[in-house]
């Protein structure tokens, strides 16, 4: 099936640093999502993005978070500055029809 790629697979950073998580969505998809999964818990919606704009964000999407997809390249999630509670696995998803979402393998972020 369609593949979503995420780079890197694992990132370790010190608290207060900036981090950018990269997602390479399915090539013809138009809708993009980020979800957060804390170890042992359910995956939770962060934000979705369409036509260059954030369509909806959850309360987990703090002011320190931002997303963009410049010139149709990677869909990125930037956290600046990071906090300890940002440690989680972040999953990117993309969709063509807004409903069926395809997920990447996740980026495990560890904030020390």
């Amino acid at each position: 099936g369609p593949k979503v790629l995420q780079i890197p697979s694992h990132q370790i950073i010190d608290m207060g640093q900036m981090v950018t998580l990269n997602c390479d969505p399915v090539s013809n998809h138009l809708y993009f999502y980020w979800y957060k999964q804390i170890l042992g818990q359910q995956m939770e919606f962060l934000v979705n993005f369409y036509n260059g704009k954030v369509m909806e964000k959850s309360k987990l999407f703090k002011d320190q978070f931002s997303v963009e997809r410049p010139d149709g390249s990677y869909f990125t999630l930037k956290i600046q500055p990071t906090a300890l509670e940002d440690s989680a696995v972040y999953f990117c998803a993309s969709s063509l029809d807004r409903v069926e979402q395809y997920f990447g393998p996740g980026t495990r972020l560890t904030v020390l």
Partner: protein
Amino acid sequence: AQSVTQPDARVTVSEGASLQLRCKYSYSATPYLFWYVQYPRQGLQLLLKYYSGDPVVQGVNGFEAEFSKSNSSFHLRKASVHWSDSAVYFCAVSIQGRGGSNYKLTFGKGTLLTVTP
């Protein structure tokens, strides 16, 4: 607010036995319904989906799920499990978010399935 409940955090079955993983949702309308599987260190893979019509939907690898509007449920079933089915299974619902042009998934907490020899 909508929610998804998977009442069984862990399920253990013997290889070759039948399986049912339970999922109930709370939402005023019928959402789109999904089951995803997550293997260790991998992303989510879609097993099956329900949009409308026949309440029993077939998925990959012999999985099926049955939608019940009266029970607000979408239980996953398999007639005979294999050791390779050991994974975490997530039930999810999709509803239209604010803004009118996007949908977001709400997930249950997942059920860890262990298939024993």
